[in-house]
């Protein structure tokens, strides 16, 4: 907006700034607080006497000798074998992103280039599928998966997450492909490319920003999932989020809550880095569906 329409009376400017500061505190403080607290002992982070103990670390100093301790992290990663869950999460998310993008680019491209009515109906069906609560789908899977003996494996969770991801991936990639002029692939086909060659060698190279953005959201869906991974995986194959949930069952024991706090902070770090490096793509991805579609 230009300077003239932007000028604001000072009262409004102060109010607006105060509002933003308040929002930022609400948005970011819980994470800072938990990060800080994860290096304390339970007696400080969940202090019976005074929450100021979490800042000064009275019990942490008394119990461990220093103001900060890595006990929670040691307990989570080594004693409770959180590293296993981290590896599983890595396998699941990378596979889900790669397969989703392969299927999604093919399908999204076809939908953006087809003038027929069924393309519209496929998109509408995808929208309806997008609205299905994941846990209702899981309740459809469980019994068949038990019967087929495929329950509990990472592969099963990957396949299911790819499928649940498809409606969203299709919509997003479809709207990105629409913004690429049809002339581009048509001229490639005039020059003798097949449809697939035009897609592979002409369209995909100019689509990278869209593919990266969609990949980010596929990653988030797989990484953040709880409903599917908590119900379809065995104890040994658990990914990070259900593993953290299972830590909570044993919260009564002194020190165990700090395992969960440390695990939560550990699982937040990749998301934090993701936002840090891909902020622009995330913002453009969130708006792509709204502005273009």
């Amino acid at each position, binding site marked *: *907006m*230009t300077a003239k*329409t932007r000028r*604001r009376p000072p009262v*409004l*400017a102060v109010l*607006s*700034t105060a*509002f*933003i500061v308040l*929002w*930022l505190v609400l*948005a970011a403080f*819980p*994470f800072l*607080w*938990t990060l800080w607290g994860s290096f304390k002992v339970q007696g400080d982070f*969940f*202090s019976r006497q005074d*929450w100021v103990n*979490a800042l000064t670390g009275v019990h942490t100093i008394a119990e461990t000798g220093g103001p900060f301790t890595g006990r929670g992290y040691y307990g989570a990663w080594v004693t409770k074998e959180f590293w296993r869950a981290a590896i599983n999460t890595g396998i699941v998310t990378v596979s889900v992103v790669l397969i989703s993008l*392969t*299927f999604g680019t*093919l*399908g999204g491209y*076809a*939908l953006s280039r087809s*003038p027929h009515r069924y393309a519209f109906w496929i998109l*509408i069906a995808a929208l309806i*599928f997008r609205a*299905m*609560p*994941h*846990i*209702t789908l899981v*309740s459809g*899977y*469980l*019994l*068949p998966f*038990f019967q087929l003996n495929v329950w509990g494996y990472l592969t099963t969770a990957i396949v299911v997450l790819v*499928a*649940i991801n*498809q*409606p969203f991936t299709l919509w997003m990639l479809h709207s990105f492909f629409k913004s690429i002029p049809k002339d581009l692939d048509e001229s490639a086909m005039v020059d003798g490319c097949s449809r697939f060659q035009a897609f592979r060698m002409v369209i995909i190279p100019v689509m990278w920003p869209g593919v990266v953005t969609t990949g980010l959201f596929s990653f988030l869906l797989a990484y*953040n999932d*709880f*409903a599917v991974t*908590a*119900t379809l995986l065995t104890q040994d194959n658990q990914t990070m*989020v259900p593993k*953290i*949930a299972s830590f909570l069952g044993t919260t009564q024991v002194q020190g165990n809550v700090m395992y969960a706090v440390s695990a939560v902070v550990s699982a937040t770090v990749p998301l*934090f880095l993701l*936002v*840090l490096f891909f902020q622009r793509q995330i913002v453009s991805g*969130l*708006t792509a569906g*709204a*502005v273009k579609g």
Partner: protein
Amino acid sequence: MPHRTFIWFILPSALAMLIFIALPIVSILVQSLFVENERVLVTVENCGPFGCQKEVRVDAQATAALQREHPLGRFNGLGTYGNRSHLAFSEIAAIWNARPTLAGFLSEVMTLPFYRALAFTLAYTAVVTPLVIALGFFIALAVDALPRMVKGPVIFMSLLPMMITPLIGSLVLFWMIDSNGIIGASIQALANDPSLSLKASATLAWITLFVYGIWHSAPFAFVVFYAGLQTVPQDTMESAMIDGASRWERVRYVVLPHLSPLVVFVALIQLMDNFRVFEPIVGFSAQANATSLSFNIYNDLRSTGTPLFGSAAATSVLTLAGVALLLTPVLVRTWRDFKRSR
């Protein structure tokens, strides 16, 4: 694009959706008509030095055999839908006859698991969706007025509550409102009531979950509206100013109409996402005070011993009916637009 090529391109994606989204719907429809096999009981006579005793035992072998033979369980027709954990027709009728006042009737109905979950799910959707849109809009207006330099970091911090795993985000807040945590302890000190706990009362638990929902989703509305604000036509804004429109009138009559398609978009996504509210209830351990439809399904599936597939499936079917009701206006509108555009 010829039909043949189209089919080859769409096939992997369409197959994935057919097998893992469309078929499960059929699967829950079928499962909801069955209930778990009964355990096979045998009566054995134990004779000891003090005489004979008759004892009823579960015949594990025969039960397993029955389970192998009928993995779905016994056919139950629509019985599961009407039982106490779902629509509870006979219980409702009994309560209706026993309680003359409406308030008494409603509070009794709220003890039935399905209606309890439905009430919370609807309340959550109805409260969180508009507040997310309003909060997101005001954040977008305020951020848009900030100097360019601080916008990047502000947007970065604003995105965090949305990007966080829902279960983890609710745990982070849950630990802070714990009566030994920073917010919980401060509230106790402020209210001067050491027994006050956000987890104890149903009302406070509901409010906590609503606040979490707004905190989690406001960034999404904010980002969408913020992008929309960048495209507000400047000519219209300036002419509105020249015509003497106040700041608020400009927002009301120029900015809001410009953003209205985005409001519809955010509302649609939020309705779909809020209706399946689930993780926060696990994260806040709030099941004693608030359950949602999704949580009930999860609870049935995780029920100790044998999972209650029939019960979970019936709740799933009822949930999908709710989703269909929510989506109908959108679909009717899309269909009208589509017919008009042809």
